[in-house]
């Protein structure tokens, strides 16, 4: 089989998330692992890697895409019924089997909420197999919050404990802070660690922009969280998604890895020992 030929897939539904992000439901089930991604293709424009933001337990594949360049803008112009090309799923995904039986702390910032949502849905659907779920989500303001309905509903439920930080206060954020003063605060996402008791027996999943990752990493480490139980995703330029084109490599010297094939999920230990990753700071 030629892995580079995309499969045509129908867009079933498009839902606005923020002024720059949309959620696409695709007419395909891929049996993916949370944390895996697909290469989405628009003929004549190109391909872009995007994380699958839905759990395999929920059926069709969903992706949440931020409009930033050629492919992503072209995608935003498409509506339900249009077709896109899909390859994948690719990448390792989160080691959810290792996390079985333990508490899971999810930390998300910005578009990082997309892969985290796939994990969250999975954990909620397999509630019995996992311990407590905590979600720490950092947003700029309410307008930039992804999956608004779902997050607001979860804040009010016992299935998981949601902690929220926002940088700019608006009406909704203010209301939420008043309603849940022990779980909502103004500031960057690391500020939430003042409100959360970290359990060193837990596992953590961290997704967000590179700067955020290093701050979260340091904060958690300083608070005694074992970094070998922490997992994060990396984003790099990608072309093939299958370990050939070598655009996505990270690391220097003897520790070089393909983000597409060896990742995009890496453990805290890998993050610490792969020097190239730190150039990001």
């Amino acid at each position, binding site marked *: 089989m030629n*892995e580079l030929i*995309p499969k045509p897939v129908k867009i079933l539904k498009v839902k606005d998330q923020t002024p720059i992000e949309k959620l696409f439901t695709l007419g395909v089930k891929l049996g993916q692992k949370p944390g895996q991604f697909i290469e989405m*293709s628009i003929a*004549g424009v190109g391909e872009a890697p995007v994380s699958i933001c839905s759990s395999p337990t929920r059926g069709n594949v969903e992706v949440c895409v931020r409009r930033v360049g050629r492919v992503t803008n072209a995608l935003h112009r498409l509506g339900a019924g249009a077709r896109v090309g899909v390859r994948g799923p690719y990448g390792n995904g989160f080691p959810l089997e290792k996390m079985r039986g333990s508490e899971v702390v999810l930390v998300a910032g910005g578009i990082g909420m997309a892969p985290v949502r796939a994990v969250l849905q999975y954990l909620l659907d397999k509630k019995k197999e996992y311990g407590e779920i905590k979600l720490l989500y950092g947003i700029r303001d309410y307008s930039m919050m992804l999956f608004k309905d779902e997050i607001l509903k979860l804040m009010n439920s016992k299935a998981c404990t949601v902690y929220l930080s926002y940088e700019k206060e608006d009406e909704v954020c203010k209301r939420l802070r008043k309603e849940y003063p022990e779980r909502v605060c103004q500031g960057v996402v690391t500020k939430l660690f003042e409100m959360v008791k970290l359990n060193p027996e837990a596992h953590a999943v961290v997704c967000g922009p590179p700067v955020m990752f290093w701050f979260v990493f340091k904060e958690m480490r300083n608070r005694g969280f074992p970094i070998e139980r922490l997992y994060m995703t990396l984003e*790099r330029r990608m072309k*093939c998604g299958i370990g050939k084109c070598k655009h996505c490599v990270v690391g220097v010297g*003897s520790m070089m890895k393909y983000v597409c094939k060896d990742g995009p999920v890496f453990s805290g230990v890998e993050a610490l020992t792969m020097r*190239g990753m730190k150039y990001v700071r």
Partner: protein
Amino acid sequence: MAKADLPKLFRTLAKYGPVVAPVRVGENVVFREVTSLEEVELEYTRSLTPPKKLFLGPQEEILKFDGEKYEEVFEDGKAVLFGVHACDINGLLKLDEIYLDSPQDEYYARRRENVMIVGMSCVPDERCFCTSTGSSYAYGGFDLFLHDIGREYVVRVRTERGYEFTKDGYFKRMEEKDFLAFKKAEEKKVRSIKRKVDLAGIGDLIDVTPKSLWEELTAKCLACGSCNLVCPTCQCYDVLDVLELDIRSGSRIRRWDSCMLKRHALVAGGGNFRPTVVERTANRLSCKVGGEIRCVGCGRCTVYCPAKIDLVEMLERIRVGA
């Protein structure tokens, strides 16, 4: 076989498919299609572009699309790649590790199957260092290999496909004296490769090399990417879509890319994970010798660098740390 019989072998090989061989063009030697043995440069040091171009084209169409319907594009064609040196054959074996690894690259895999390879002993110069990278001898990765032992060639057969070409009467069984001549010729070649570089643990040394030394080593680098384009083991490619005038059909093309170019690690929004030649050179060296040795010591990147940046000198300075 006697050297005088080479034209015969050439003619039977040509029945398999078009022959691509080293040809002298001005100062350089390049691989191109030939119709007679006279055109072939039998004794050369290194070709400008590596023969990998037959398997991974500098620019090739991979699929056609019409709206969101995608169709594979593949030209099937047998060919003979004639006169390839041990370093370049080893280079192909290194590319095999990437392109034949699951999921394999169908384009590469099919060409690798279709193209027959006839190796040829080389004429090393002072820039070759293949004995340090373990690639001065090809154990496999070819169909036939011709070793020059004076008036004759010792022919090593590696595949059944190659064996088919050795059935003609002018091939003789090797005798004791031929083995000795072969051994002597190989020893002479190995001795003539004077350039050495110690690669043990170099990956970790690259890792701890201070920025100041990187800056010094790369000060003259033009970020032109020539070192990548001539390298027999560079694997990177870029992909782009080309639209027809009807703006719905077109083709997806891939072409060699270069990690020394600024755009290689550029992401949307202008972020770049390897913004300067320092990070890019560290990446290139890590890729070549940081972990598994992916350099075959052909010396091309040094010979064809317009800024005269010498890979082995860089590695020596990295070892010394100053």
